């Protein structure tokens, strides 16, 4: 049963309740949306480069190496720009048991991390500052760990999608969600 859905240009957020009769699990997912225009642009420019190389070979009598290298270059940029390794990341909250963090890749690979409920001290929403930007991230303060555990390792969803997940985590772990909403330290990547 899908309870709520928010989306923007890059991500969309889905909240599902598996087994709604018993309060067994709550799944919050952030899904990466496919961007058709980007794919079109990348293929078009790759085609342009290849066409240019072939023209150079046929008309200006350059060596075949030009075509070969431009083909390699095309493969590289298509691979880099169009490969979306992450398809979606989700948080499965099982009250009284723990929280499972999953990362689903396009290749079919799924990486799961489980954190028992009593090891979670508090979920926190933090601002991370990098040399070029600043974004919000959701992390868990875990007992006996020096570093915070990022809930979404690969994706950077907007804060309006993170807030309902954070509230659900607070409710599950029993920490106060409305006051004292930030700590002073954080992993600033």
């Amino acid at each position, binding site marked *: 049963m899908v309870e709520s859905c*928010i989306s923007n*240009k890059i991500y969309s957020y889905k909240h599902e309740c598996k087994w709604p009769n018993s309060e067994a699990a709550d799944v919050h997912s952030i899904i990466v949306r496919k961007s058709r225009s980007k794919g079109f642009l990348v293929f078009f420019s790759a085609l342009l480069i290849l066409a240019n190389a072939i023209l150079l070979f046929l008309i200006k009598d350059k060596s075949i190496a030009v075509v070969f290298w431009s083909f390699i270059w095309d493969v590289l940029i298509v691979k880099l720009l169009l490969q979306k390794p992450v398809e979606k990341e989700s948080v499965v909250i099982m009250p009284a048991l723990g929280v499972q963090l999953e990362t689903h890749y396009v290749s079919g690979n799924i990486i799961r991390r489980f954190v028992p409920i009593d090891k979670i001290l508090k979920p926190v*929403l*933090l*601002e*991370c*500052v*990098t*040399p*070029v*930007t*600043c974004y*919000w991230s959701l992390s868990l303060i875990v007992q006996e760990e020096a570093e915070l555990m990022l809930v979404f390792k690969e994706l950077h969803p*907007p*804060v*309006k999608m993170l*807030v*309902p997940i954070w509230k659900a985590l607070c409710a599950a772990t029993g920490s106060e969600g*409305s*006051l*004292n*909403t*930030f700590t*002073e*330290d*954080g992993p*600033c990547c």
Partner: protein
Amino acid sequence: MGDSKRHRILMVSDFFYPNFGGVENHIYLLSQCLLKLGHKVVVMTHAYGNRSGVRYMTGGLKVYYVPWKPFLLQNTLPTFYGTLPIIRTILIREQISLVHGHQAFSTLCHEALMHARTMGYKVVFTDHSLYGFADVGSIHMNKVLQFTLADVSQAICVSHTSKENTVLRSGLPPEKVYVIPNAVDTAMFKPAAERPSGNEIIIVVISRLVYRKGADLLVEVIPEVCRMYPNVRFIVGGDGPKRVRLEEMREKHSLQDRVEMLGAVPHAQVRSVLISGHIFLNSSLTEAFCIAILEAASCGLLTVSTRVGGVPEAYDMIVLAEPDPTDMVQAIKKAISILPMIDPQDMHNRMKKLYDWHDVAKRTEIVYDHALNCSNQSLLERLSRYLTCGAWAGKLFCLVMIIDFILWRLLQLWKPAEDIEVVPDIVLSHDEDRGISQDFQAFNEDNSLR
């Protein structure tokens, strides 16, 4: 607050806590007073070691420690356009209305002011030091300052001497420069309940022992005073390259029992060192505005100082001397003779009335109001101001600004402003049981997010 608007100010400088100094103290205390007046203040500086990211200080003061590595004397590496993305992100997410840069020597400040002007924000600059005109370093720095100040909305200097110096170095019209002196925290610098008794007169010196602060003058003055007055003792606090010379002087004249060297004194202990003395000696060769003198006067000490820079403007009861050993010894002689007539509590009360950070904040608020009332100018109008900076320099500055403008437009296309999320304002609520707790109101109202 009344009818004046609530401003949203971004303070930018390379120099901030955990570094200690005049500029750092100024930014912190001014920000605290502005927060009390109801404005929103955010500070941006570079990361200090591990201290990187967002931190919150007293009163809800948000500090961005941007992870750019410092390369020289706590200054960020100047990359011209490298800081444009992060500055744009901070300005949009905090909904800043005005950018206030501090200290001419800070590269981050210059870059931030340049980018803020490109993006159309109003800009205020405060200069805290006096600089020369003759040496190579100063010439280059003055050119950079000329570039930054060519298009600043308003400028603030800490003394009239400093205003003269800044106007001459940068070619800024004097009408745009306001003089707002620094203040002193009179609550922290209180005189001792009882003056140090006994026959001895104790002269305190606390400064960095470098050439600029006149450490060489001390080397000449101290033995002379000790010879003339057998009941005078010196306490010297501070460290630096010239400490060796002072130690040598002690050895040479056998003054080990008359001159006490304390080494570096942490800021929290300055007051306890000051209240152990009767007279404060300042031998700086140049000073835009000497806060040390104010701190000493607030603690009830009589001050003897060199007549340089903005020192004579501080207050009237300083005994002034030329930066010359003989003249300084005469001044100390005069100070010792008038010492019995000085009442420490009276001096402290006068300081309290003359210097107050809340007063500085109110005056700065007026400068902000004037800055925000300045007209918005298009790129072409602004470029004409840069052309007046010099034959070659003017054209170079124009080119720099045009490239900055183009990069800003490209950045707007790549990362539109709508994608940058605005940070909700912090509302401080005081809870007796739990201390100060902070509350993101917007996060608790689900409606505003969907």
